């Protein structure tokens, strides 16, 4: 038997399974949206790891990536990278969300304070 070039029921099933997994992922993630706990911003880069309160007002530059924390949200205002995906991601404000700059190896994530161990910065 060989692979068909016409759409089959199995394709719809495969697509459905993928969309269902995506939906489960969204539900799992949004569970943390409603957590009323206090959130921190966790920043990880090569040779750098820090945490700031999401309620703080901080502007910092890590490995060429300018990160701004203000009024309960965090975003990347500018970056040295080529694709600017991190800048285009925009603001995030809920636990579980993240802004990533792959070329600069910088990850910014909002975490629930209860979740974690390391406190720095």
């Amino acid at each position, binding site marked *: 038997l060989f692979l068909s070039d016409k759409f089959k029921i199995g394709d719809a099933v495969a697509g459905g399974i993928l969309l269902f997994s995506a939906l489960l992922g969204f539900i799992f993630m949004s569970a943390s949206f409603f957590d009323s706990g206090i959130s921190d911003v966790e920043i990880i880069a090569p040779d750098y790891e820090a945490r700031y309160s999401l309620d703080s007002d901080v502007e910092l530059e890590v490995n060429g990536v300018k990160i701004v924390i203000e009024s309960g949200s965090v975003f990347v205002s500018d970056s040295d990278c080529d694709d600017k995906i991190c800048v285009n991601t925009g603001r995030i404000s809920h636990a579980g969300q993240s802004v990533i700059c792959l070329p600069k190896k*910088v990850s910014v994530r909002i975490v629930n304070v209860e979740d974690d161990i390391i406190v720095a910065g």
Partner: protein
Amino acid sequence: LSMSKMISLSPVKRVVTDGMLCGTALMLSYIEAVIPLGALIPLPGFKLGLANAAIMPVFFRIGAADGIMVSLVRVVISTMLFGSAASFIYSICGAAAAIAVMWLVKCFLVSRLSYFGVGMLSAAFHNMAQCLAASFVLGSTAVFSYIPVLLAVSVISGSVTGMISALCSRVFDRRSFL
């Protein structure tokens, strides 16, 4: 007719066809590299995976070994042309995942799926493998928060590459082609 058979080629024609489709895959990689996708869909690790549209017909019509070789050569050359050492890690992981999916489909699901399904599944696993690679490079699991949305968009991007593959596979059946 909808069941497209493996095509048997003389060794020379096989090398020529593989080379030609590798060129097609590279051209598609180039198109993808010049589209400023990051501005439209800001998802770290997301690729349209257009090159896969040329890899799938090679894998399913000419041979699995041919598909693997064409994919490997495509990744190496496109990294040299448009990529970097860092992008090579993501590309090779993504390509390996896509090939693994094709292999599994070839072994177990070939009668139940078409190029559309294979396109969607390989796009999804390509993106997830890149996320996994990124989590190692970044030393953080933060990228995993993009998995749900990456899965959802890979259904669309995979359908598009699957459709192109299906058309490509039909071209193989034209007598004048080979």
